[in-house]
């Protein structure tokens, strides 16, 4: 049986070491951010009556940015490692990106935790320029400096992966166009196809982020009066895509890892190639569902938004999910912690996707927009989706690199606890959305007091989730550290 990392001969010790370091960084950020999340739910459950709400909003901002950053980087690290079976991305750029990310995260932490900069991770124009006494201008500057650093270094990494793919594949090959024309040869692994699509799109997102920053500067310095509607479009073009693509990078990992556990190949078929090319076209328009409640967008734009959002679910989800299930059905599937996490991740992706399609309906969005339904759906495909997929990769790789191939005895229990904590916490979000509880409220007004109870129940589930995570991740971190040391000795 071929192991998912059987081509690890292609991976240099430096790449393995870097990947382990990325794993440790992502897990550490994940835990910190989950703790922040627990703080948020406890705050909404009125556990800290003496703490000023401004802390809620800065913690909210930091929680989301770290979560988005951690798993974008985690999935990039996974894709970078797996790509090395086929092409050779630069380890130096990845290390540079790590340095830049650390600096960026530190700056953003300073701005939010010391500067009380609490505008939400999407820093919607023009809120950062209206502190109303909550934060000082330096916090705004430090925050944007941190973001700019992240955008630049991430873009460098993204472009380098593209460059590596381009050294071996032509654009039409990497996008599987020959397969669309009916050819069978040469083979293009789904990993390469999905990664190419994702990286091209993420480039657009990072350029949009840079544009937002530039327009903020233009407006802040009084050189232009920037249109709030344009800024909102750009903000969500960037914000939606970066989250969406993190998911797709996780799916790229899935396509590469799952076959090893199933003992069946997962090739780029015509439908797979078609699906991901359709994603390339549609994903740039899906963000429009964030602007349904902006009546200033022309009606036809909203209709395009709903149509694009609906059909985006079809190629990626329907094709990939069906593919996953067909791959494991009666395959003699090897159930390990990693493969369980992968399958659970696919289920989380599906459930989050269904909730997303429901919310992407304009008529429904009218009563769901900016209620807890929104965090409900993206926490589902993030926490119970892509996070599990990337953790599966780290789990598998750290095992292979350290030669510890057997699961710990309590693995089943840990996973159950993880799922119970996770879905219990999510259920409160869904319930909150259905009962009109607004999102991003530090405390709830009398009309939506049900939110307080929901937050307390959710916090209890988060504690369960955290318990599972601490047990599971501490073992994994120890393995990663061992693997890191081994690779260091090897090089």
């Amino acid at each position, binding site marked *: 049986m071929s192991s998912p990392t059987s081509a690890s001969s292609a991976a240099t010790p430096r790449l393995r070491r870097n990947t382990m370091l990325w794993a440790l960084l992502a897990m550490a950020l994940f835990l910190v951010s989950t703790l922040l999340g627990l703080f948020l739910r406890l705050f909404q459950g009125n556990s800290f009556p003496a703490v000023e*709400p401004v802390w809620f*909003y800065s913690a909210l901002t930091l929680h989301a940015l770290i979560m988005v950053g951690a798993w974008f980087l985690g999935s990039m690290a996974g894709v970078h490692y797996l790509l090395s079976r086929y092409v050779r991305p630069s380890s130096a750029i990845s290390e540079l990106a790590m340095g830049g990310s650390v600096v960026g995260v530190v700056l953003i932490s300073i701005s939010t935790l010391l500067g009380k900069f*609490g*505008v939400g991770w999407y820093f*919607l*124009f023009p*809120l950062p320029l*209206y*502190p*109303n006494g*909550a934060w000082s201008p330096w916090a705004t500057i430090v925050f944007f400096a941190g973001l700019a650093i992240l955008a630049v270094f991430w873009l460098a990494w993204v472009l380098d992966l593209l460059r590596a793919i381009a050294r071996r594949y032509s654009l039409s090959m990497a996008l599987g166009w020959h397969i669309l024309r009916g050819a069978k040869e040469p083979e293009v692994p789904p990993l390469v196809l999905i990664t190419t699509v994702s990286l091209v799109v993420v480039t657009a997102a990072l350029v949009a982020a840079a544009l937002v920053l530039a327009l903020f500067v233009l407006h802040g310095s009084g050189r232009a009066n920037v*249109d*709030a*509607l344009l800024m*909102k479009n750009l903000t969500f073009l960037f914000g939606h895509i970066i989250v969406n693509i993190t998911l797709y990078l996780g799916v790229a990992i899935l396509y590469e890892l799952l076959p090893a556990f199933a*003992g069946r190949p997962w090739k780029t078929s015509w*439908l797979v190639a078609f699906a991901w090319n359709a994603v390339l076209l549609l994903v740039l328009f899906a963000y429009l569902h964030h602007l349904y*409640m*902006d*009546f*200033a967008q022309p*009606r036809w734009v*909203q209709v395009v938004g*709903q*149509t694009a959002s609906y059909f985006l*679910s079809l190629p990626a989800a*329907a*094709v990939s999910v069906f*593919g996953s*299930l*067909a791959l*494991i*059905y*009666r*395959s*003699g*599937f090897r*159930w390990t912690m990693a493969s369980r996490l992968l399958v659970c991740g696919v*289920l989380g992706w599906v*459930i989050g996707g*269904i909730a997303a*399609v*429901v919310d992407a309906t*304009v*008529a429904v969005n009218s*009563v*769901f*927009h*900016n*209620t807890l339904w929104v965090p409900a759906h993206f926490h589902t495909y993030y926490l119970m989706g892509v996070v599990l997929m990337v953790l599966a990769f780290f789990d598998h790789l750290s095992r292979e690199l350290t030669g510890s191939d057997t699961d710990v005895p309590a693995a089943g229990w840990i996973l159950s606890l993880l799922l119970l904590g996770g879905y219990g916490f999510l259920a409160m979000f869904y319930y909150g959305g*259905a*009962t*009109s509880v*607004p999102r*991003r*409220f*530090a405390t709830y*007004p009398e009309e*939506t007091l*049900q939110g307080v109870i929901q937050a307390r129940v959710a916090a209890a589930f988060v504690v369960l989730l955290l318990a599972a995570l601490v047990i599971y991740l501490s073992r994994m971190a120890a393995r990663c550290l061992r693997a890191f040391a081994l690779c260091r000795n090897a090089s």
Partner: protein
Amino acid sequence: MIPQYKALLAFLIITAAATATFLWVTRNTANKERLNPEAVSKLRSRFAITCALLLIAALALTLPHLPYPRGSEIPDKVVFVAAKQFAFGLSEAPIASDAQWEAASQGPAVRIPANRLVEFRVTSLDVNHGFGVYSPGGTLLAQTQAMPGYVNRLRLRLQNPGRYPVLCLELCGMEHHSMRGIFEVFATGKE
């Protein structure tokens, strides 16, 4: 049933079906078997087409219910709404200055006849806010963004008399959660 519950129900039903499928497949992974690739690809095409048809049906069912008003009806009343950190000013007269906003947000609640078409003209004097209209019982009824530089027109016909709170549905600063407005719907008697 309120639209929120309908959406929740649809979500739960589809999710249950998906989860059941997952459970069924994951319970059938042991007996190693060579699948007939043609049968798999046929099933896959069928599944994709079914999904596509379901999506098209959902589009056809929901797109006619866009919340954006059409002009065929003449509203019975206009209410001007100006949002500003951290209150909504609602008034029967246009709100063009901070002073007018203050008067509107602190004055008595605007009164609106029940069962009449009301047009809210919503704008913001500073950052983005969300004009979220709640029922007296705390159910979100409708919303539109309050965006600086734009006037969004939300049209509503409210049946039940009572005091309707307005909550802010776009993060707007440190007092976002306490930002609110209110209006009162009164019974018109004759209907």
